C-alpha cells in the first residue's frame, strides 16, 4: 500500500450518538417530554444496521455500545495512528428519516449541539458537519446560520437519498447559505427511506441498499449539474462522501454525451459536466471499489483526468480496509500528498 503521510485530513469519520436519550440535554422541555412520553426509540437507520459487518471494522467494534460512540476509541483507532491534523465528523444519526419538520429541526439542533460539546470541545483535531432538517428549507437555512459562527463546523451534511433530487430549485436557499458562509455541502451515503432505495424499487437485502448508494450518487450528480446549481452558485463545493470513486469517469462520459445531445433542454448548463465536476465536486477516498492490482488503479485515476477530485477518508468506523491500508496500492507520493492534504484544504476553506 502507498505510504501515509502525517498531517493529513480525514474527511469522513462517524461519531455515533449512543442513544436518542443522549440528545435529551440538548432538547427543550417540549421535545424532551415528547421523546419520553411517546416512548420514542433510537433513530438507527437501515442504511447502517449496528451489527452489519460494514458498519464497523472487527477491530474497531467495541465490546458494548455503538461503533464510533467513544472519543477515546476514535483517537486510538484513527486520529493518533494516522497522524491526522483534522478529522471531519459526519454524524449518521437517523434524524433525516423523521417526517415532521418541527421534530426534525429539534433533533438536528440537538445533534449539532451534541457534536460541538461532546466531540469538538474535547479534541482540537476534530471538525464538524452541520446536519440540517430538510423537511423545511427555511428551518434548514436557519440551522446552518445558527451553527456557522462556530468555525469548527466546516460543512453542511445531507444524505444522498432524500425526498427529492438534490438539484431541485426548492433546495437552493440551502446552497445559497452554504456558499455565502464558505461551507461545502457534504452529501453522504444513506437514505431517509422516503423513496425506495433504488430507482427500480425496494430490494430484499441490506447489501442491495449498500451497493445502490453508488447509483444514488450518480443520479444526484446529474440532478445537481443539469438543474444549474453550479451556474447559480459557482463557488459552492460539494463533497460526495462514501460514494465510491471508480464509477466517476464512465459516469461522466455518459452524462457528457447526453449533454451534448440534448443540452437545448437545460441551456443554463454552460460548461461541460466534467469541467463542472473538476471545479465544484469532490469525492472521499473510501470505499475505493477497485481490484487490488496497481495498474488498474492507476488507469482509473487517469480516466478521471484530474488529481484534485479525491479527498482522504478512513470512513471510520465502517469496514472499508484493514490495518493502516487506507490508501490503495499504486498511488504516487505526489498524489498521496494531494489526496491527504492539498485537496482537502482546497475544498474546505474553514480548515485554514
Amino acid at each position, binding site marked *: 500500500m502507498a505510504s501515509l503521510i502525517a498531517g493529513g485530513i480525514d474527511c469522513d469519520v462517524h461519531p455515533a450518538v449512543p442513544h436518542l436519550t443522549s440528545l435529551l440535554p440538548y432538547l427543550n422541555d417540549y421535545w424532551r417530554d415528547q421523546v419520553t412520553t411517546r416512548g420514542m426509540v433510537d433513530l438507527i437507520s437501515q442504511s447502517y444496521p449496528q451489527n452489519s459487518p*460494514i458498519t464497523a471494522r472487527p477491530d474497531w467494534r467495541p465490546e458494548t455500545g455503538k461503533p464510533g460512540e467513544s472519543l477515546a476509541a476514535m483517537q486510538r483507532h484513527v486520529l493518533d495512528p494516522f497522524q491526522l491534523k483534522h478529522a471531519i465528523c459526519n454524524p449518521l444519526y437517523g434524524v433525516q428519516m423523521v417526517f415532521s419538520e418541527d421534530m426534525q429541526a429539534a433533533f438536528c439542533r440537538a445533534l449539532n449541539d451534541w457534536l460541538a460539546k461532546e466531540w469538538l470541545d474535547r479534541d482540537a483535531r476534530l471538525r464538524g458537519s452541520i446536519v440540517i432538517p430538510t423537511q423545511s428549507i427555511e428551518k434548514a437555512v436557519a440551522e446552518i446560520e445558527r451553527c456557522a459562527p462556530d468555525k469548527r463546523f466546516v460543512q453542511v451534511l445531507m444524505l*444522498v*437519498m*432524500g*425526498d*427529492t*433530487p*438534490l*438539484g*431541485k430549485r426548492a433546495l437552493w436557499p440551502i446552497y445559497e447559505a452554504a456558499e455565502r458562509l464558505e461551507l461545502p455541502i457534504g452529501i453522504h451515503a444513506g437514505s431517509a427511506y*422516503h*423513496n*425506495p432505495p*433504488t*430507482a*427500480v*424499487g*425496494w*430490494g*430484499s*437485502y*441490506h*447489501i*442491495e441498499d*449498500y*451497493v*445502490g448508494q453508488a*447509483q*444514488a450518487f*450518480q*443520479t*444526484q450528480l*446529474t*440532478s445537481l449539474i*443539469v*438543474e444549474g446549481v453550479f451556474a447559480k452558485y459557482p463557488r459552492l463545493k460539494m463533497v460526495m462522501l462514501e460514494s*465510491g470513486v*471508480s*464509477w466517476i*469517469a*464512465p*459516469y461522466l*462520459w*455518459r452524462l*457528457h*454525451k*447526453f*449533454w451534448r*445531445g440534448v*443540452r*437545448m*433542454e437545460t441551456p443554463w448548463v454552460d460548461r461541460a459536466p466534467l469541467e463542472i465536476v473538476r471545479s465544484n465536486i469532490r469525492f472521499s477516498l473510501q*470505499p475505493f*471499489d*477497485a481490484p487490488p492490482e496497481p495498474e488498474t488503479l492507476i*488507469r482509473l485515476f*487517469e*480516466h478521471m*483526468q484530474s488529481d484534485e477530485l479525491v479527498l482522504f477518508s478512513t470512513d471510520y468506523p465502517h*469496514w472499508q480496509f484493514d490495518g493502516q491500508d487506507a490508501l490503495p496500492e499504486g498511488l504516487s507520493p505526489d498524489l498521496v500528498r494531494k489526496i491527504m492534504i492539498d485537496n482537502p484544504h482546497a475544498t474546505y476553506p474553514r480548515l485554514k
Partner: protein
Amino acid sequence: MNIQFRENQEAASPLTVKPAIADCDIHPARTTPTELYPYLAKRWQHHLEIYGVHAYQGMMEGPPYPKAQPNASRRDAYPPEGGPQGSSLAFMQKQLLDPNNVQLGVLNPLNTGQGIRNHELSAALCSAINDWQIDKWTSKDKRLKASIVVGNEDGPSAAAEIRERAGDKNFVQVLLLSRNVEPLGQRRYWPIYQAAEEAGLPVGVHAFGFGGNPITPSGWPSYYIEEMVGHSQCQQSALASLVLEGVFERFPKLKMVMIEAGFGWAPSLCWRLDKAWQRLRSEVPHVKRPPSEYIREQVWWTTQPMEDPESREDLFDVIKWIGWDKLLFATDYPHWDYDEPSRVLPAGVSEANREAFYLGNAKKLYGITA
C-alpha cells in the same frame, strides 16, 4: 449521435462492400394505432378505446418526460409512404439494413403491453405484438429476428407466452424493460427466467419502462436528460438485484443482455458488488460466488449509446475489463441517438475483436449459424 444522411451518401453505399454486422437493437413501430387489432380480441379493442392502457405512470398518451425529438427518433427516418419512424420495412431496408450490410437485426418493440396495470390486457397486447412481429417483419425479411415480449408483472402468464413461442425460429430472445414494479431479481419474475432458460433464449433487458417507482432513489427528477442518463443507474440496480437475489445461481444457463444502458459502468459495479459481497455474504448465502463471476459468465451488453471518452485508451481499458466477447453492436434505429456503425469503434482494434464486436458475439449468443 443523430447523424443525418445525405441522399448522395445513400446512393453511393452499394458501391462499397461493407463487412457484415449484427444490429442488436432495432425498434419496429406500428404504422397506425390500430395495427394490432387483427391480433387482439374484440373485448380488448373496446377496452383500449374506452380506458386506454392504464400504465404505471400518469400520461394517457406519450411519455412523462417529453423526448428531444418526435418519437425520440431521427427526423430523416420518416418513411416516404407515411407513418412514424421505424414503421416501414421497405424504408428500414433502404436506410439501415442494406447500406450497413446488416446480417442479423434484433427487433425490440417498445410501447407494447409492458408496464400496464391491468395484467390481462398486458398479456393480450404482448401476444399481439409477437404475432405482429412475425407478420410484418420477420416473415418478410430473414435478416430480422424478433424478441418475445411478455407481460412483465405476471410471471406465470409471461412464462406461458415464452413456452408458446419456444422453438419458433422467428424469435431469438425474451424482452423485458429495466424499470418494473420491483427490481428484476425479485421472485415474481423468476418464472420468466425459468421459461427462458428452458427455451434456450437469452433475456434482453432494455432501458426504459415505468413500474410506479420514482426513477431515482430520491424521487422524480425534472428533465429528460436525467431520465436518459439515469437508465444506466436503473440498469445497475436491476442487475445488482438479479445477482443478489441469486437468479444467476438458480438459473445457471440463463443468459441476459443489458440493452441501451451503456456498459462503461459494468467494471465498477462488479468491483463494488464483489467488495460488498466479501463483507456481507452471510446475508445472501444463496450467492455462492463473487458477483462479478456470474456477470462475466451470464451477462452481455449492447453498445449503443456507445461510451465516448476523450481517449480511446480509456474505452479499450473498459472493454478489456468487461471482455471483448461480451459486447453486441447496436444502432438503436430509428432513435435519435443512433450509432453509425462505421464510426463507433476507434482505430487500434484487432480484426478478431472487431469481428466479434460487430457480428460474431451476437451470432453466437443468438444461435445464428448462417
